């Protein structure tokens, strides 16, 4: 009967120009209080200018046991990277 509130993941934008980054989680009964709790927990030292909270249960994550299928196929597509191409040094602005 003394059960805890649901879990929310907290994301902070440290300053303008940066993406929100995951910093941890809080327990809260609803989204408004979750924002308050995130603010009071994770931004006590001016750590951010913007906050996101997302119910932990709503996050869909890739399965690490699939990571070979998910991520390895990108490994040999070296032609996606600019360094794959050799351009003579005296050709500029390319």
């Amino acid at each position, binding site marked *: 009967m003394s059960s805890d*509130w649901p879990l929310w993941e907290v994301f902070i934008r440290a300053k303008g120009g940066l993406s929100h980054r995951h910093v941890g989680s809080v327990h*809260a*009964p609803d989204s408004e209080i979750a924002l*308050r*709790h995130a603010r*009071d927990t994770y931004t006590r030292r001016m750590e951010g200018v913007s906050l996101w909270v997302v119910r932990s249960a709503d996050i869909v994550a890739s399965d690490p046991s699939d990571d070979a299928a998910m991520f390895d196929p990108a490994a040999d597509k070296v032609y996606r990277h600019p360094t794959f191409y050799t351009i003579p040094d005296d050709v500029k602005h390319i």
Partner: protein
Amino acid sequence: MASLPPIDIPPATTGNGAFDAPADDPNGALFDYLLRLGDDSLVLGQRLSEWTGHAASVEVDLSLANIALDLIGQATLLLDYAGEVEGRGRDGDKLAFHRDVLDFRNCLLVEQPNGDFAQTMARQFLFSTWQRRLLRHLAGSADARIAAIAEKAVKEVTYHAELAAEWVIRLGDGTEESRRRMMDGLEWMARFVPELFEADGLTAFLAERGVAADPDSFRADYEEEVGAVLAAAGLPLLPQQRPILGGRRGHHSEHLGHLLCTMQFLPRTYPEAVW
């Protein structure tokens, strides 16, 4: 809100209410006014700090401590300034730790015991909603120092008021038990609300000079705002009760003496010590 005759307002013939500072002494009046503002923040900050480690969840502990820290910061600025205005070498610490009840000028609302979380939120909601409106006015005070402090504090208090309102709504509209507790909390605090709007010679004198705010000017807005939150919480309007006054003149509830006992014990026991 109740409009029954207050119990211990002295006859208007004194001109100054019960204040010792004569109205033609701007420094005395300003000092007294700063004590009112500073003591409100100090006493409520002290009360909230009693919660540390005992709240319903760790998150709530963090929230309450944040509010307490804001209030103690405000008290430090205001009481330091009061000491300067007084010009007798007292600083914020001297004023906080070496005055007895008769010289404390906070309103009765802030010294009320924490009770349960509902009572604490009732107090916070009724006070912060008022303090925010007061500070908004004071941000335009003719006294530059008060204006600067108010401008900083109003952001803090806006957060306090919003958070408290959210809790009043959740507790009012939560379970049967929480609704009963929320009503009990409001019921306990309601008689101290009229004091927030008490106007006396001192506020009139300072308001005329653009230093203080006349609380009556935002009374209607306050009542509307409080009413809207209570409605959202599904709670009835504040009960009509006979107003209890006196804090601004040093006539407090029994609770303040105990709060001061705890808060002041070290500096009073060891007056020579530096901490």
